[in-house]
């Protein structure tokens, strides 16, 4: 009997490397950076990158139940979206998914301005951030990142790779620019200046 593999795939000089990369990604519990993959596979970064493209083609939506994604600064496998229903019947959605408005605002501040301190968060949101920060820390979406330079400086926080993973971001650079959100700030400013003029008069 013929000993050929069951799945008919176009043979490529990178096939062996692609199989190794697949194996590494299956074993990993967190996204693996390209450099780590190359070091583990004991091969060139460029070749591993090419092998990843091959793996990505084979493991894409509609072709496989396992999908390769570039997320949180590395590569990882996830379930395909068509399997989401089945997955949700067997597995609980990760706790990170249900975030309150306060938690989302705090996350936004830390993601855009981080590393930043709790007083800075409080200053922007105008309400105490203690409980929210503790909550996000517990969920692993933010982490401590040293202290402020001032004497007795407050602890600074940054978002974690888990944050990028939960939000499906390859890196923080994928966040939309903060300036793009600015739409009617000028209106607020004009209104405030009118009030100020009335007060001053």
């Amino acid at each position, binding site marked *: 009997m013929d000993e050929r593999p069951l799945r008919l795939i176009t043979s490529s000089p990178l096939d062996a490397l692609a199989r190794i990369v697949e194996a590494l990604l299956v*074993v*990993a*519990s*967190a996204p693996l950076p390209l450099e780590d993959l190359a070091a583990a596979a004991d091969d060139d970064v460029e070749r591993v990158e090419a092998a990843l493209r091959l793996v990505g083609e084979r493991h894409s939506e509609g072709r496989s139940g396992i999908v390769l*994604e570039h997320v949180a600064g590395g590569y*990882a*496998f*996830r*379930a395909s*979206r068509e*399997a*989401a229903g089945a*997955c*949700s019947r067997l*597995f609980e*959605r*990760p706790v990170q*998914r249900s*975030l309150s*408005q306060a938690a*989302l*605002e705090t*996350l*936004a*501040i830390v*993601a*855009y301005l981080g590393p930043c301190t709790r007083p800075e968060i409080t*200053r*922007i*949101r*105008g309400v105490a951030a203690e409980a929210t920060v503790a909550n996000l820390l517990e969920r692993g979406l933010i982490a401590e990142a040293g202290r402020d330079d001032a004497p007795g400086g407050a602890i600074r926080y940054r978002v974690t790779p*888990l944050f990028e*993973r*939960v*939000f*499906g971001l390859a890196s923080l650079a994928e*966040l*939309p620019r*903060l300036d793009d*959100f*600015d739409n009617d*700030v000028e209106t*607020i*400013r004009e209104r*405030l*200046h009118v*009030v*100020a*003029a009335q*007060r*001053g008069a």
Partner: protein
Amino acid sequence: MRVAELELDLEAFEGPLDLLLTLVLKEEIDLAEIDVAGIVLAFIEEMLGRDRSENGAAECELGESDLEACGEFLVLVSALLELKARLLFDDEAAELAELEPEEAAEELARRLAAYRRTKEAAAWLASRLEQERDRFFRLGPAPLRPPVSRPVAPHDPAALVAALRVLATPPQAVSLAHMALRYPPLEQFVQRFRSLLAGRGRFDFENELGELSRVEQAVAFLALLELGRLGEVAIKQAAPFAPIRVERRDTERSPAWTSARSA
């Protein structure tokens, strides 16, 4: 009931209320550390306790003196709260108070804009979360790396024995042969100069050096200095690099003798 004597048992302070106020005003206690709600609770408990003991029931009407105490307490606590609030927002309050209405409006607009952007960013995150709700992935602890092994290269036991043997053998005595004295001892020159002076009374140092090597010349000079130190010779030199003249000192004019005679 006297409000000032209200006994407090807070995390940061234990004692009567008036002492706490004094310490706070003297800035010996950081008001930020004081739990004002704790003070209010202590006051309420005190009032309830007194009412129970007087009337045997918790529900009762306040007497006139109690009303006064309540009023006094309210004034005190509100002052304390205001003080605490000022302390907590010290810099910010000062910053804002110094601003002109125009500047204040600008500052407020800046802060509102910052908050508005934060809200928009949060909304974006929320929508992103909604889009990603069908993404299921594995979450686990950080993967373990294999421990770094440091393999030892194979070695010949005989080599180890040889190395140990070298260590166990006492080292050979170090030869000092190369450090042997190549010049006559100091004493030889001392004797020579003494005999010269006994005969002639004086001599020129250079004339006596003759065929001596550099090292021997140095030893000869040391011998001369030694004689000078002992007070046996007077050493004279008219100018730098001029000939060194050595004269016998008259033993009778030695310092010891002179001092004996003058005494």
